[in-house]
């Protein structure tokens, strides 16, 4: 099955590259100037955020596709995109405070990026919950697609309003300029994480495909039965 082979290929290469990227990031490069060792979380945090956004954008595109054409394939990729995006954005909500705590010694910073991610997680959780509650195939696809589009459009809107709202007390943990030597592990980790994300997406797609083929696809239409011969009723 080509899809299975693709998933394995992407997964393996992703893990390999990621190992290299994290390896360099953790072991060899010098500690970051102001944040010391904790700066190394950067190599983890930025790629995770990037892949989360990529996954939700894939779901957004799939949502438009499913509204436009109504094809089941779009619905399946939308489902996969949302789930992968959820996994990665939940991770961001965990990594964020860990990174922020040492520099500002309180866990939850109203940093626009982090807040936006948290709101994105809640929004797409709502989409997944709603999706499980609707049983007719067409209506579930349409409702999920609309909710995905609305939730996706909401992300930049939330970001800007939180940034304005938050600009009153500017926080400290701005990423200081990323100097050259840190760029290598960052980019390598980025590539690795993206490949891993793609592998997750494909794997999740295969699950949805299998589920769809077994349950949703209407059985082959039997040929029309012959006209009933009328027996004269007693």
């Amino acid at each position: 099955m080509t899809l299975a082979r693709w998933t394995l290929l992407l997964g393996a290469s992703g893990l390999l590259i990621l190992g290299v990227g994290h390896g360099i990031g953790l072991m060899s490069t010098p500690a970051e100037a102001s944040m010391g060792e904790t700066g190394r979380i950067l190599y983890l945090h930025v790629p995770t955020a990037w892949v989360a956004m990529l996954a939700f954008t894939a779901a957004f595109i799939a949502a438009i596709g499913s509204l436009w054409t109504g094809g089941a394939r779009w619905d399946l990729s939308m489902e996969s995109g949302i789930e992968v995006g959820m996994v990665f954005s939940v991770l961001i909500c965990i990594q964020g405070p860990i990174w922020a705590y040492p520099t500002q010694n309180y866990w939850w910073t109203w940093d626009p990026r982090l807040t936006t991610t948290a709101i994105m997680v809640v929004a797409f959780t709502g989409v997944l919950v709603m999706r499980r509650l609707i049983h007719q195939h067409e209506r579930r696809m349409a409702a999920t697609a609309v909710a995905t589009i609305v939730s996706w459009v909401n992300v930049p809107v939330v970001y800007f309003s939180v940034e304005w709202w938050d600009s009153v007390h500017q926080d400290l943990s701005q990423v200081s300029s990323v100097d050259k030597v840190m760029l290598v592990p960052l980019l390598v980790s980025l590539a690795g994480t993206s490949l891993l994300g793609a592998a997750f997406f494909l794997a999740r797609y295969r699950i949805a495909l299998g589920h769809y083929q077994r349950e949703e696809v209407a059985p082959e239409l039997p040929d029309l039965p012959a006209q009933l011969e009328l027996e004269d009723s007693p």
Partner: protein
Amino acid sequence: MPGERLVIMGANGSGKTTLLRMLSTATMPSRGTLRLFGLDPAREPEAVRQRLALLTHLPSLYDDLSGTENLQILARLLGKSLNVEPWLTKVGLDQRPEPVRSYSAGMRKRLSFARTLIQDPQLVLIDEPYGQLDPEGFSLVDRMVDELSARGTTVILASHLVERAAKLCDHGLLLHQGLPRWSGPATQAHQAWTTLHRSLT
């Protein structure tokens, strides 16, 4: 042919309602194509829906509003005169101010029929016309169907009360587990029904 009447017969779950909903463009077929008035409803839903009306067991009425107000909403939407009085008398109702909530099942059915008459459709699809009605209501349904086809409206009924519906219609279609098993003149409908059941038991 305008004014003709077809009854779709079948036990519950035989696909009568689904077929009716598909004919009324309430549900789109997942496969295959559908032709109504020579048009494809998937491509031109507005044109098709203008010409047909669907009557389901759900009355699609606003319980808080009176019968007159319910019809006036429709009249306003269709751009017709707000004097709905003639339609009410045609179905044997009057301009009482009480909300529809206080109506009996029979009166609700009459109001639903009035809703259909106002739209003046070319095709009327009725799901279980005799549902929740007393015998007196049955004769009302018959009169209404006659009224509709007298105005040249084609009527398609879906019912499991075969004898009653068959007497009313010209053609019959027997469904069983989603598949058409017989179609022909309504006079033989009862015969087909018993034949099918005899072959099952």
